[in-house]
């Protein structure tokens, strides 16, 4: 009984996915929607196979620009989060600025980036970076800033320096926050890359979808959408696994 339950639990996401595809296919057929408006699941799959070569090429472009942008986001996010979180003053000073910055739609940066760097991979990388570093900064800074005062006292009576407290307690303590933010950040990074590619690139999935759309080849556009979400899902799962491995202590009791 429990074994069956567990199996169903594991299969649940796949069942949901299949159900969605079936609903999609049935709806499009039932209402006889023209394929240049909303292609059926079957047509999308056909497009995926027919154009697998170009799709693979453009996906790869999107994939590595996203990863570079994400890598920059992680590096900058960690350092900035550490600095801001380690000082109450900086935390209070910088937090409103960060919130304000985060509220700007990142697509608004793309024209600026194009003026500075021309079209191509660089604006895509930078847009991915700009959109994904915020959750990392906030999570790391919050993890550090919410250190229990008693814990700090325990170390301070031993003569611990501020840096000792941060490295021995603050940083390990903020790791679960950090890894949780990576999952959010990687999906955001894909958003950033694709947004930039649609307006300022001649390669990448975003560009592919834009140009296919202008030719009314909606099957290909939808194939692009599927590829993006598939990549984001795989990366999300990867970081979820990493999180579980690195900070198992923070998720105790869930696997019992």
């Amino acid at each position, binding site marked *: 009984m429990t074994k069956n339950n567990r199996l169903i639990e594991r299969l649940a996401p796949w069942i949901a996915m299949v159900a969605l595809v079936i609903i999609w296919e049935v709806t499009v057929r039932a209402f006889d929607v023209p394929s240049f408006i909303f292609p059926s699941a079957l047509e999308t799959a056909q497009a995926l196979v027919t154009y697998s070569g170009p799709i693979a090429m453009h996906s790869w472009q999107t994939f590595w620009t996203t990863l570079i942008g994400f890598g920059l986001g992680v590096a900058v996010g960690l350092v900035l989060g550490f600095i801001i979180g380690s000082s109450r003053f900086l935390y209070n000073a910088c937090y409103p600025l960060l919130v304000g910055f985060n509220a700007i739609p990142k697509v608004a940066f793309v024209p600026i980036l194009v003026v500075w760097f021309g079209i191509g991979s660089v604006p895509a990388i930078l847009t991915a970076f700009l959109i994904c570093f915020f959750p990392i900064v906030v999570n790391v800074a919050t993890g550090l800033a919410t250190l229990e005062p008693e814990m700090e006292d325990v170390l301070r009576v031993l003569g611990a320096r501020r840096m000792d407290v941060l490295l021995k307690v603050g940083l390990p303590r903020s790791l679960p926050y950090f890894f949780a933010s990576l999952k959010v950040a990687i999906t955001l990074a894909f958003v950033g890359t694709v947004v930039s590619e649609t307006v300022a690139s001649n390669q990448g999935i975003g560009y592919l979808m834009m140009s296919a759309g202008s030719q009314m080849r909606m099957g290909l556009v939808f194939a692009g959408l599927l590829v993006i979400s598939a990549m984001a899902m795989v990366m999300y799962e990867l970081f979820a696994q990493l999180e579980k491995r690195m900070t198992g202590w*923070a998720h105790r009791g869930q696997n019992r």
Partner: protein
Amino acid sequence: MSAAFVSFDDVSLAYDASGNAIEDINLSIHEGEFVAFVGPSGCGKSTFMKLCTGLHAPTTGTVQVDGEAVTGPLKISGMAFQNANLLPWRTTLDNVLLPLEIVKPYRHQFRKRREEFVGWARKLLKTVGLEGYEDQYPWQLSGGMQQRASICRALIHQPRLLMLDEPFGALDAFTREELWCVLRDLWEAQRFTVVLVTHDLREAAFLADTVYIMSRRPGRVIERRSIEMPRPRALETTYEKPFIDLVQELRAQIGEVRST
């Protein structure tokens, strides 16, 4: 009585303009003495701890420890609180070793002497009854076991001054009495100086040489009472008449404080 190890001269502390948290504290604690502070809640007992360890500077007066004025956090003290405050990502053993990674001179020897330090930690954990739990994580231990580990962490670097802020407050009655005995035995063996802050009069009377009773805020010491029971004390004595009478008297004094 030997020269004072900890001495307070006319010490007051105000955190802000709302008045003193504690006021006109004059006392001296000699080395190896076990003192307990009791009083109604909010009487500044924890403030006293912070002054004593140098985490806070007094507004007026001076605090001296070991013949020198306290100006910053002391390095010869260990501390344990009501919450065990163990780090959940470290095993019990690594939690106990933490002070050795921070306190001079051990911090610079930590890598080289790690084996030796681990030996100290295992021995200490064994004396408090945690043998076999060294590699468990804190969240796998019960509250009482966590508190034992917390006391080990406070003692691993062989501090001369042990500060305990209601360390047994969150435990059930049986575990609490068990840990009294653990603390008693550790103290009998090593004779460090202990400052214990507690709400529990039986705890104070059973463990301490001297009990200080504090008034309501602003906290003052209103009574200093030596506990003249022979040592080592057996837990059974806490259920006998002389001890019960003593606790009754302390209780009456606290009652007076609360009603004024």
